[in-house]
Every structure is written in structure tokens, then in C-alpha cells.
């Protein structure tokens, strides 16, 4: 297929402002704001090898930038990241905005998935999207003043007045959260009957965290669902602009808190791309092994809680016990259970402890038997089947349209796993299958995850048998913390060590994106460095955000108990939605 930059240059002369070099080698084009709609529509529908998925939409506040490196003048840059399945390639489009009240046309007409992304950009940057159906804050409370990701907004809570919650504030906050159907264009009556608006959450055992869903009900039938998110917004992206490159790693653990080191993975790889660090083989395999252990741990939490959502009490106790076994191994290796903070820029924190092989081996021997038991207990259970088969069905096209990745995409029959399609950290050398479903319903999504448990175990086994010898950390000068051995022999290494440990490494200016096939879907970090000890912009593209946005579409027409099955089968974590 023809290179996309050549096509756009040929078909749209004068629309492209410039082509930017990035460390991730994605084609990155600056487009004039006037033409962005036309180009996006062309890329989605007309071009050979279309970019069907709006993978990410975000913005950068450029006003504190030092290294412009010949980029067009811009106060705020809106970044569109598209994914083409035919080309197996990403494309990044950037639009510079210089107005005092920055605005762009909304692309919700091209991709419905843009809805939440544009609301997020509006909420955090104050950029307006003309023609958006409901441009309203999404992560911050309605009563919030300012746009947190603007460079002029304070980052720390301690830079702002101390938080207080007197009676009258409590009252106003509660009032601002009141749901008004007419604001969302929803009718309160249908055919002379009153409809019920059920408020599910933010505190509800079925929502798996602090998520609020307002369900429009006709009897027990769902007519519409309006999710209200942002209750779990922890400012992880702003935090990246304040922590050093190294000391941000613990924060990544806590985005998607069931995935542990799986979150460190894309972040450190993106930093390594920026710094030009090559990671030694042993570190690569250790990273894969730990990530797959976390995939098992996360899927086990999902397995038990999903069954519990559908009324089974027993499985959750069994799967949590097995999760304990995985966490014991993780704790023996990393020293912590849920948030090990164990990957480092250029490698991992330390050598594997003596005796790790026996731990892994005993788990490999133990686990398949249990999986069989779960099949009998859960997957073959007739009630479980009755409540999941044919529920929450969607097609591959719909999934791509809404930005669905991971098991939710594979359950529709598309064999798309980033570990196979765009291998990273040496996944291409492992033998494993990519399980898929056919029907795209809740049962198939469950089936895919259950099979993934087996495949992860297979990968771990290969790690065990083929663990390469060598260092666990790169000897690149930007590796943090740097290798200690040579520091007391020459002054140059000592200085580097001292600076990297105290200030943290200075990463050269540039930008890079790196994503991994995480437990819930494709998780990516888009980092912009301005040649400093902290990141200039840290964008975390999480899978749960688009997945949750899709829930209303796939729940409409089902009944309220089906909503629990749909939510459970979606497998999101609220920290992964709100960051």
C-alpha cells in the first residue's frame, strides 16, 4: 500500500503544514484546522487501507514549550491518533490552535467514539468542539473552575486552598449531580407511560467501582444508559508533568490497578524509545513473564467477580485463592502484591531472586487443573450460559467504530492481538495462540479471557525454560538508576549516576508512543519530552475508557439484570477509565 504521507500530499496539496519526526516512527502530520474534518473523513472512508479506528484523541498545551523543533506555532495542539487494521499501522494528526478561545469542529459525526474523548479534552484543556452533541465536563465535577491540564492550572492539591466540605457546599455539589433527563435529550414518558430513571451508583456493588449509570427504564427494559464518570479521576496525566521520568513509574502501577507491572511496561518502553535505550534480552523476558503473571491475576479477579455478578457465590472464593498463589510469586520476585513498581527505564529493578524457577514451576503444575474445574463450575453452568449467551452482542465493525481492543474485540471474531501484530519486547519469539470468539456476546468475551489464562501460562512456561543469561538492566547512561559497579572507578560514571539518582535522567526532546496488549485491551503511553527531567505531556490511552463508553450502545434493548452481565463482561477498572 502507498505510504500515507505521499497519498495525503498528492490528494490534498496545501492541507498539510508539516511532517514531524517522532521517536516512534509513526507518520505524524500537522494539518490546518480548517481541513481536519475533510482529511479525517477521507482517512476513515475513502483511502486505500482505511484508518477505521479513532484510537485516541487528546491535546497538548504548548504554551510552556522550550524546544519547538520547527513545529508550527501553536498554543494548544489537538492530537488524533488513528489505527488502520489493513495497514497494521498508526497515524498521528496534529492540529495547531492559536485562538484565545480554542475550538475545532467535532468529529463525533465520523466516529461516535470521539464523544467522550472530545468531552475530556474540553474538560481538561478548555478546547471547544463545535457541533458536539453534549459538550459538558466529563471527569471533573460540574462545579469545577478551570481546566486542569492547562499549564497555568495548579497541579498539587496543596497549592490550592485546603479542601472543606461544609453543609452548603455538600448541598450544591449534590444538586449539581442531579440527573436531568431533558439535558440529555431523554424523554420522561413513552406512549403515555412514565419511564423510570434508575440511578445506579456511584456506590453500587454491581458497578465494580465508583461509576454512576443512570438507566432509563420502561419496566425492566433498558431504553438508554447515561454513564457518569470522573469519580475516580486521580490526575495521573498531570502527575507525569511533575514527577521525574523515573519516579513516575509507581503512578503507572495505579492506572488499571489490577494489571500491576503491565502498566509500567508501555511507559518504560516509551521512555526507552525517547532515550534510545536498548534493553537486554534477559530484562525483556523477565518483563514478559511478570506481565503475563499479572494478566492471570487480573483475569482471575474478573473471573470470580463476573460469576458473582451473575449470582454465583463460590467461584470468587476459588479464583481469589488462586490469585493469592500468583500474588505470592509476584511478591517473592518484586516484593509487593498489587503495585510492585518493578520495571525501570532500561530494565527491571533487580535480578530474579534465587529459587524463582521452583515457584513458577509449581504454579504451572497446579493451575491447569483448576482451570478445568472452573470450566465445569462456571463456563458450562447452564444459568451462567443463559445469562451471557446472546447478551450484549456487537459486531467487529461496531467494535472498531467504538475503539474496542483486547478480548472485547477478539470475541467478535477478529484475531487482533498487539503481541502478535506489533510485537514488542520480544513477543514474536513466543509460541501462543490468540483466542477468538464468534458471536461477540458476553459469553464469548468470557471464553476468550478464560482461554487467555491458558495462553499466558504457556508464555510463562516458555519464559521459565528459555530465560536468557545476561544483565537485567541496560548499561546506557540514561538507565535509571544506572548500573552501580563502575561508579567508583571513574568520575564520569559517578557524575552520571549522581545526577540520574538525584535529579533523574534528562530525556532528549521528542515524542514517542508505546502501547501493549494489557489485561483489558490496548494500553498506550504517549510521551512528549521537552528535554527536561520531567515529561512535558503524559497521555495515557487506556482501554477501559472507550469500552465503558460503548456500554450504553450494547445495553439498549436488554433488561436491567443483563446490564450486570454486560458490565461484568466488559471488564473495566474505574482507575483505567478516569485515570
Amino acid at each position, binding site marked *: 500500500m502507498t505510504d500515507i504521507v505521499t497519498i495525503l500530499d498528492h490528494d490534498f496539496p496545501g492541507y498539510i503544514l508539516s511532517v514531524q519526526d517522532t521517536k516512534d516512527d509513526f507518520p505524524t502530520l500537522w494539518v490546518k484546522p480548517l481541513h481536519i474534518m475533510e482529511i479525517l473523513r477521507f482517512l476513515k472512508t475513502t483511502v486505500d487501507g482505511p484508518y477505521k479506528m479513532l484510537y485516541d484523541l487528546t491535546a497538548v498545551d504548548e504554551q510552556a514549550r522550550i524546544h519547538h523543533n520547527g513545529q508550527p506555532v501553536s498554543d494548544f495542539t489537538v492530537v488524533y491518533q488513528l489505527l488502520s487494521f489493513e495497514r497494521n499501522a498508526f497515524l498521528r494528526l496534529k492540529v495547531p490552535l492559536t485562538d484565545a478561545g480554542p475550538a475545532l469542529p467535532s468529529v463525533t459525526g465520523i466516529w461516535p467514539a470521539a464523544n467522550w474523548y472530545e468531552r475530556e479534552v474540553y474538560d481538561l484543556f478548555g478546547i471547544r468542539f463545535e457541533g458536539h452533541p453534549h459538550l459538558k465536563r466529563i471527569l471533573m465535577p460540574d462545579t469545577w473552575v478551570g481546566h486542569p491540564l492547562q499549564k497555568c492550572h495548579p497541579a498539587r492539591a496543596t497549592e490550592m486552598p485546603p479542601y472543606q*466540605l461544609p453543609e452548603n457546599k455538600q448541598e450544591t455539589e449534590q444538586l449539581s449531580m442531579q440527573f436531568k433527563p431533558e439535558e440529555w435529550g431523554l424523554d420522561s414518558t413513552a406512549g403515555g407511560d412514565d419511564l423510570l430513571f434508575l440511578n445506579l451508583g456511584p456506590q453500587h456493588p454491581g458497578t465494580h467501582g465508583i461509576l454512576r449509570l443512570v438507566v432509563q427504564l420502561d419496566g425492566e427494559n433498558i431504553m438508554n444508559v447515561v454513564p457518569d464518570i470522573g469519580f475516580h479521576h486521580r*490526575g495521573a496525566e*498531570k502527575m507525569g508533568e511533575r514527577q521525574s521520568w523515573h519516579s513516575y513509574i509507581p503512578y503507572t502501577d495505579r492506572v488499571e490497578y489490577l494489571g500491576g507491572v503491565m502498566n509500567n511496561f508501555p511507559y518504560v518502553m516509551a521512555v526507552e524509545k525517547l532515550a534510545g535505550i536498548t534493553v537486554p534480552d534477559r530484562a525483556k523476558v523477565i518483563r514478559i513473564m511478570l506481565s503475563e503473571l499479572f494478566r492471570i491475576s487480573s483475569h482471575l479477579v474478573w473471573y470470580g467477580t463476573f460469576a458473582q455478578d451473575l449470582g454465583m457465590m463460590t467461584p470468587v472464593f476459588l479464583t481469589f485463592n488462586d490469585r493469592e498463589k500468583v500474588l505470592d510469586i509476584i511478591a517473592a520476585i518484586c516484593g509487593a*502484591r*498489587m503495585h510492585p513498581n518493578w520495571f525501570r527505564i532500561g530494565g527491571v529493578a533487580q535480578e530474579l531472586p534465587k529459587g524463582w524457577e521452583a515457584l513458577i514451576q509449581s504454579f504451572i503444575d497446579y493451575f491447569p487443573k483448576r482451570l478445568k474445574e472452573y470450566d465445569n463450575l462456571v463456563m458450562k453452568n447452564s444459568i451462567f450460559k443463559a445469562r451471557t449467551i446472546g447478551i450484549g452482542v456487537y459486531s467487529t465493525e461496531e467494535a472498531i467504530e467504538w475503539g474496542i481492543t483486547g478480548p472485547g474485540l477478539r470475541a467478535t471474531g477478529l484475531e487482533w492481538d498487539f503481541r502478535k501484530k506489533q510485537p514488542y519486547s520480544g513477543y514474536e519469539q513466543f509460541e501462543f495462540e490468540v483466542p477468538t470468539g464468534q458471536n461477540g456476546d458476553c459469553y464469548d468475551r468470557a471464553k476468550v479471557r478464560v482461554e487467555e489464562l491458558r495462553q499466558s501460562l504457556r508464555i510463562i512456561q516458555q519464559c521459565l525454560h528459555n530465560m536468557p543469561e545476561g544483565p537485567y538492566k541496560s548499561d546506557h547512561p540514561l538507565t535509571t538508576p544506572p548500573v552501580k559497579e563502575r561508579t567508583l572507578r571513574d568520575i564520569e560514571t559517578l557524575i552520571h549516576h549522581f545526577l540520574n539518582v538525584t535529579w533523574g535522567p534528562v530525556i532528549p526532546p521528542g515524542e514517542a508512543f508505546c502501547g501493549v496488549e494489557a489485561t483489558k485491551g490496548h494500553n498506550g503511553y504517549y510521551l512528549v519530552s521537552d528535554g527536561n527531567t520531567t515529561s512535558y505531556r503524559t497521555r495515557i490511552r487506556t482501554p477501559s475508557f472507550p469500552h465503558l463508553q460503548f456500554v450504553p450502545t450494547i445495553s439498549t434493548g436488554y433488561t436491567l439484570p443483563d446490564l450486570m452481565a454486560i458490565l461484568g463482561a466488559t471488564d473495566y477498572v474505574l482507575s483505567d477509565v478516569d485515570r
Partner: protein
Amino acid sequence: MQWWTSKVNDPTGTVSGNSSFEKTFQKSIILTNMESMVAWGRKNSIWPFNFGLSCCYVEMATSITSKYDSARFGAEVIRGSPREADMMIIAGTVFIKMAPVIKRLYEQMMAPRWIISMGSCANSGGMYDIYSVVQGVDKFMPVDVYVPGCPPRPDAFLEGILLLRDQVGNEKRPLNWVIGDQGIVKPRGVSLKEEKRAERMKMTEIRDPGSI
């Protein structure tokens, strides 16, 4: 007090001359005041509210499962409604958007009610000194027990429950009007950091992280 069991075939029978009237009497009767009796009951059946905010909630839920089994301390009957619960565990980060909701849920709980602040975020904001996070749940709600950790292990959380049990058991909550001070008198909080310092200082060997 001496204890013995009765025989199956002879349930009312005596066991080798031990069943004096006095001893039988001691076995069947507890002399206490109503207040302590109620406190004993409360202490041994604290019903937690099924409420979680973030990562800590997963560890809190883990503490109910078989390996940790909070049922051993009578605290496994998780309630979905605040109206039925005695204890609210602030398991996770207290977000500014969520704070009014947390307070409302707390207000819906009936007294006596207790709060455990679980994890660094709920204790003080922890590593999230960021615009969207309240720097500790005690900024707008009373807290009885603080459990440190990020997240605390389920064992650490269970220790928090044990501390709360002690507190609940020793709390003075008059059931009716009595002469003297009115109102609830809570025992003075203890700092385990201080209490366990001497024991910690005795430790001279630290486990080698290079082996399991």
C-alpha cells in the same frame, strides 16, 4: 472455672462428682452490666458496608476470601446499604468529585458507626497530592482507625479490624440516662508505630531480597 462435657447417653448426668450446684450455676450465668454486654455483641459482629473507592478495595475484598477470612472476627457480613452497616471502610483515594457522595453515605449510616481509613490515600492523600484528590478523608469525616499501606495487605487490614474491635469493646456508650458524664467516651487511640518500636529495634537481620 472448670469445664466438662456431658455424655451422649446421659445428657443430664453428672461427671465424676464435679457438678456441684455452684459450678453449674457459674456455667450458666454471666454477671455483667447491659452496656458491656451490648459492647461485646457489637465488637463481635461488626458489619462492614460494601463500599470501595479504588485499589485498596480489592485488598479489602481479598480479606473476606478464604485465605484471610475476616469471618474469624465476625466482620464478613458485608452490606450493600449503608443503613444496615456498622462500619465504613474508606478503601482508596478520596476524590473531590466523590467526597460529597462519601459524606452522604456516611450520614445514611445509623449510629453506632465506625470508620476505618484504609491506605495512604484515605489517610493523607498519600502519593496523590493532586488537584482532584482530598488530602485525607479526615478533612471532612471522623476516622477511628488508620491502616497504612499502598495498598495495605489484607493482613494489615485485618489488624485494623482487630484494633477497631478493641475500641468498640471498650467504648462507653450509655444505654440510658445515668449519673455522671453523658455521651460517648471513646478509648484513647494508640499509635502502633510507637508501641511496636522496641520490638522493631530488636530486629538485626534483614531478609536478603536476592532469595525467596
